[in-house]
């Protein structure tokens, strides 16, 4: 694949603007750019073909099965896109007067109301642009709360060792010390470890529930009680909300602050790494600290303008489509699809936790690795040759040789059956002919990349001189 710069020839560009009918009025010479600007020069045909070629070498949810655990790669409905492309939304300047943006306000307020209802919170801000951004925002609410009460000794956030990396990273950004606690043998919070960890310095606990091994923590009420009794607050990472939306609400489980990922649970596309949206929600006693209010007590803003608004339009469209009965129905089928795959694989694939799972389950290939040398990475790479996206690899960190599978609710039984057959076929291959597994994939546009070289000798931009 040529780079766009390698396709470029001077003076080949397409002109999109009319000729300026006013005299030039550039700032004086001392402010002028001297370095030539080496952007590509291509006719539109070439631009179009370049990106079409790149799109062909990109795998999206529309391309096929995408069971990336913890990412909830459900189908992204087309109506969402069409609604977000309405000129009545795309052409609105964020600093227009209030009376001219009533429709945008209606979108935001309606979505906030629905998210409150689904999560059991009292207030929601749409400012955060991604899950990690929402975590940071929520943790600042916790910080502001303790500060305002003069409870400045509460400097620690407890995070289970099964948590997403963003949890400890967000806690550190919010100025907290991170206390990691080990999970119990079921992958859930170890109550004794939690009791030992909480104290007068506890600002809060961050928890994903269902957790990162795909289980609903049965002790959830006990967990939030322990933290509250110690004077801490409970933060809910909504990464796995898809399993329980409309079934149970974090607000009822004892959580005080949450974030949800519109680009996971609420079907907005992930864009190859964003834009997402990670609204933060909280109980009433924390609402005054929320960003974007401009009121006393607010932590301030976490972005320039309102929200990733067009993402909010898509999520609202989705909730309106599913409605009261569709939200829990989606959760139920997500959980059913995961359990179906798990049951159909568990005779040969060792499961990290062999109980009923929520929307995802974790395979551990430690034994296979030990016996044959075939790793979780090898297995994932082999799946690429079958035209499916592999599960999440090596996460959560507490499971060795982990593959985390999240089929989502939008896959048919036939697709699951086909994929189950592929998984089994690969396992058979791995057992019979382990050596060749290290060579996988062989049918993809490129083969395994040399990641060590990439990091040792970073080439992160095109070299025009080379």
């Amino acid at each position, binding site marked *: 694949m040529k*780079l766009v710069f390698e396709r470029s020839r001077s003076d080949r560009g397409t*002109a999109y603007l009319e000729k300026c009918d006013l005299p030039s*009025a550039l*700032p004086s010479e001392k402010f002028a*750019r*001297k*370095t030539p600007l*080496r952007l*590509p020069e*291509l006719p539109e045909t070439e631009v*179009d073909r370049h*990106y079409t070629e790149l799109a*062909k070498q*990109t795998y*999206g949810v*529309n391309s096929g099965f995408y069971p990336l655990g913890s990412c909830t790669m459900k189908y992204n409905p087309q109506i969402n896109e069409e*609604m977000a492309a309405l000129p009545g939304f795309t*052409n609105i300047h*964020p600093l*227009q007067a209030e009376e001219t*943006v009533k429709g945008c306000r*209606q979108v935001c307020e309606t979505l906030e109301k629905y998210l409150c*209802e689904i999560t059991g919170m009292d207030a929601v801000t749409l400012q955060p642009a*991604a899950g990690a951004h929402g975590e*940071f925002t929520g943790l600042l609410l916790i910080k502001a709360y303790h500060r305002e009460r003069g409870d400045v000794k509460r400097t620690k956030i407890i995070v289970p060792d099964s948590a997403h990396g*963003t949890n400890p*990273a967000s806690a*550190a*950004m919010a*100025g907290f010390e991170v206390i990691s606690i080990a999970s119990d043998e079921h992958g859930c919070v170890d109550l004794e470890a939690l009791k030992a960890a909480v104290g007068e310095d506890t600002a809060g606990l961050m928890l994903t529930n269902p957790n990162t091994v795909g289980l609903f923590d049965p002790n959830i009420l006990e967990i939030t009680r322990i933290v509250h009794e110690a004077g801490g607050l409970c933060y809910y990472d909504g990464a796995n909300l898809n399993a329980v939306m*409309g079934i149970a*609400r974090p607000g009822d489980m004892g959580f005080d602050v949450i974030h949800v990922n519109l680009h996971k649970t609420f079907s907005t596309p*992930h*864009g*190859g790494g*964003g*834009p997402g*949206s990670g609204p933060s929600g909280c109980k009433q006693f924390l609402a005054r600290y929320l960003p974007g209010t401009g009121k006393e007590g607010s932590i301030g*803003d976490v972005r*320039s*303008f309102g929200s990733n608004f067009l993402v909010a339009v898509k999520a609202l469209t989705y909730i309106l*489509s*599913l409605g*009261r009965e*569709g939200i829990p129905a*989606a959760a139920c089928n997500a*959980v*059913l699809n995961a359990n*179906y795959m798990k*049951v159909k694989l568990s005779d040969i694939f060792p499961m990290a936790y062999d109980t009923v799972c929520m929307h995802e389950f974790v395979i551990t290939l430690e034994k296979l690795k030990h016996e044959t040398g075939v790793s979780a990475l090898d297995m994932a790479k082999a799946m*690429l040759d079958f035209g499916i996206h*592999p599960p999440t690899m090596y996460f959560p960190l507490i499971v060795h040789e982990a593959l985390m599978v999240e089929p989502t*609710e939008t896959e048919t039984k036939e697709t699951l059956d086909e994929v189950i057959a592929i998984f089994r076929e690969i396992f058979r291959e791995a057992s019979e002919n382990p050596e060749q597994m290290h060579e996988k994939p062989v049918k993809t*546009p490129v*083969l395994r990349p040399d990641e060590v*070289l990439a990091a040792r000798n*970073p*080439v*992160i*931009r095109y070299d025009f001189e080379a």
Partner: protein
Amino acid sequence: MTGYVPNTPEEQQQMLKECGFSGFEDLYADIPEQVRLGQDALRLPDGMPEIAVHRAVEEMAAQNKVYRHIFRGAGAYNHYIPAIVNTIANREEFRTAYTPYQAEISQGVLQTIFEYQTDICELTGMDASNASVYDGAVAAAEACEMCRDRKRSRILVSQAADPKILSVVRTYSFGRDVEVVPVPEKDGVTDTDALQELLGSDVSCLLLQHPNFYGNLEDVDTAVQKVHDAGAKLIMSVNPISLAVLKTPGEYGADIAVGEGQPLGLPLAFGGPYLGFMAATQKMMRKLPGRIVGQTVDRAGNRTFVLTLQAREQHIRREKASSNICSNEALCALRASAYMAAMGPEGLRDAACQCSAKAHYLQQKLSEAGLAPAYPEAEFFHEFVTVCKDAEKVLSALDKEGILGGLPLSEDRILWCATEMNTKAEIEKTAAICKEVTGA
């Protein structure tokens, strides 16, 4: 079935049975009874078929006022977006992919990010770019964090910078318990004498916006000299379109360049999604937050792109990561890159020249109409401030004609912006309406 669940109730029953479950209840046995929502307890409207959803959302969009002519910027800019840019950004593969963890089937998206990184380095004159952050203000806040130094606990931010950027930097600093000190503004630009006073061995960086919030060009040469003499870093927040004609952060010797990428082919969209770009010197490359794509080879020796330098990131370093960022604004970065590929260097330069020409003409016409320039001495790119008696009156007269005037900064000050979208006739009409109000 409702929504996008493909399995029929019969299939679901069969699957449940095959798994040894008697019903959905069995799947949720771990959820304590007290927190289980009852059947139909969710207070949401009933699900709607697509045609009804379409109607409902369209009705919301219809409540907004779409202006035919826009003279407002202040961080969000109305530029022409070639049709090809929308076509490219709407390709489903790009739109529905996750972060490219599996390089072998993600070369397309990885290459677009590599190309974007190159574009940003070219625009800013810097050595290294990341794959984007949430928006321009967050880029500024993350840049301040990159400059953090245990011995330097204060961040200086020019008061001539966008107040929204200052607000976000403050929020991020509340997290890290860092002190943010505003550098006063004088005559519409950063007061470099005051800057000198505030600089000291405890200052980690200065955040300077150029062109600044008022549209004025800063004396960056003096600022960079003073900042570097004090051993601190210079972060420049810049407008990407302006960089086609204005001296780059690289040319000024800045350490980090950040900015709002929205002008590069992203619609106004009531404020998002936008795109924060970040680029740094080679020396600071490993402090950049978030995703970075690098070039390497595959097993067969073919050029291959991968996510790289991941030792900085949260999924490896957890609480010691350079940032918590995971999802960024990849599709917006792709849009920006496609925009630059379509426009090309000449097209981008033309857009920049037109912005400047039209803004200067607008300033002249408004001045004749009784809206005097607030900073007649200052040079500007495509935004400027005027002074008049009753700003609200002027703006509401324009509003009646479908014109979104500048942003009112106070009772008598308006911040205007012109771009290639505004025609000469439109500018003259706008000035004529203003003239009627002021009676000049």
